[in-house]
């Protein structure tokens, strides 16, 4: 028997729809953005840490939280990475345009890190420690998801 040809079978693009619940705290976060263009975090009564986006539990203390804390849309870059390689975004099935900058931002008043896009892709013009401000979508275009924040831009004097 001659060596068979080694075949593969491709599934073609498969769409698997999901509809995830956001929960009470998350829903509040998006409401505040739409109504007042500000962020809301939540403080743990036991360790006192403020985390954003708000969530029901402080995982470290295993305590329910309910003290909402309103935060300005500004913060500091703690880490970032300029992404050069293209890949298919599983949420849309479309390739994400590159380069773009994935950033970790400590919002003023929060103890944890908020991740989003920073609109600077020149590695000479972005550094850990720089100040950033959130830029929002037009209110009537907001959909109640994380893209209602378009990106963070670096505050340059």
């Amino acid at each position, binding site marked *: 028997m001659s060596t068979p040809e080694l075949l593969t*079978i491709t*599934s073609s693009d498969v769409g698997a729809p999901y509809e995830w*619940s956001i*929960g009470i705290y*998350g829903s509040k976060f998006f409401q505040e953005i739409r109504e007042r263009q500000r962020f809301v975090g939540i403080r743990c009564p036991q360790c006192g840490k403020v985390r954003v986006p708000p969530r029901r*539990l402080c995982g470290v203390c*295993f305590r329910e939280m309910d003290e909402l804390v309103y935060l300005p849309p500004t913060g500091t870059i703690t880490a970032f990475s300029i992404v050069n390689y293209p890949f298919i975004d599983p949420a849309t099935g479309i390739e994400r345009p590159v380069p773009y900058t994935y950033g970790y931002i400590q919002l003023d008043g929060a103890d944890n890190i908020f991740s989003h896009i920073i609109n600077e892709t020149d590695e000479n013009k972005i550094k850990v420690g720089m100040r950033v401000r959130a830029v929002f979508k037009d209110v009537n275009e907001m959909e109640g998801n994380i893209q209602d924040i378009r990106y963070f831009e670096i505050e340059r004097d």
Partner: protein
Amino acid sequence: MEKIAIVGTAQTKYERRKKDQTYYDMVYEVTTAALSDAGLTLADIDNVITVSNDFFDGRTISSMAVGEAAGAHDKNISTVEGDGTFGAFYGAMRVWGGYRSTLVVAHSKGSEGNSKFISNAMFDPIYHRPLGLDAISSAALQANAYMTRYGITEEQCALVSVKNHGNAKKNPYAQLPLDLTVDDVMRSPKIADPLKRLDCSPVSDGAAAIIIGNEEIVRKAKSKPVWIKGVAHCAEEYFLGDRDLANPKALRDAAQRAYLMAGIVNPRNEIDVAEIYDAFSYMEPLWLEGLGMCEPGAGGVLTESGATGMHGDLPVNPSGGVLSAHAVLVAGLARLIESSLQVRGEAGSHQIDGVKTALAHGINGACGQSHCVWILGAE
């Protein structure tokens, strides 16, 4: 091996859609409720096993969504992807293996994904997936094989649906308590011959948790301990065509080993109540045969006799079973919880009198390819 017991249990109400809750919310709810049920605190929990499925959750590493909510921030943790009965077995092995206690928590939201797509993904991508096989169509094949082999009738299967939905009226957690007649079942829309809508379990959202503890934890807990007397699991072949779908041999093997471990010689007489995985009505008699509760082929007659009703000598699924609430992965853990409540005498209006030994059962894979059988006891 030392004696270990289930010392805490909790379930959410099973619903078609829990829109206001995330997995995290549901897991937190049952974690705290199970701790409260046991009279223990998080410090008494040595380790956590979560049970979740990436396809249901729409994310790879589905366990990431809930670790914190299960109190595992600074604890040893692992995740079983499969029915809760298997996850609970791993949790039990970790207690036998040295931990004082394990919290096992399972979650799923059937409402958030497409169940047909998700169950189609169980099938072999090369040969079977493109045919569109899913949980329901494959179950229909098994039902046909079973009914053709032994002459089990659709009416006999309908009796299971009538019984279980009726039992669900006494279970506050159940999603579908219904007053049905055989006629109602027979007239319900045909989904995949011979399965009609009322022969099929619903799509559900829910979560459940149990706490397993060694004797030190049992002494500390306030609950009546439900001792783990026997547990075993077994899988048979994968391709449906390689299997005899009317002969649940993997179940038979698992049941025999569980009985051996528990010292049960005559299960039909010695088991006081059974909570088994009736994802479809035909599965109840088929699994009862595999469990040795009757001869092969006699499952239909056993159901007709009334023996498996609330007042029979082997009540099956007094909780309403999976036909009344089916949060995938959670449903097997729910069977374990319901049997535990029976042993404790805490099953409320669906309590069976004088339960000393209970059986719980869960399945993995299409048409019950893999089974896990538990024997629980009051002593």
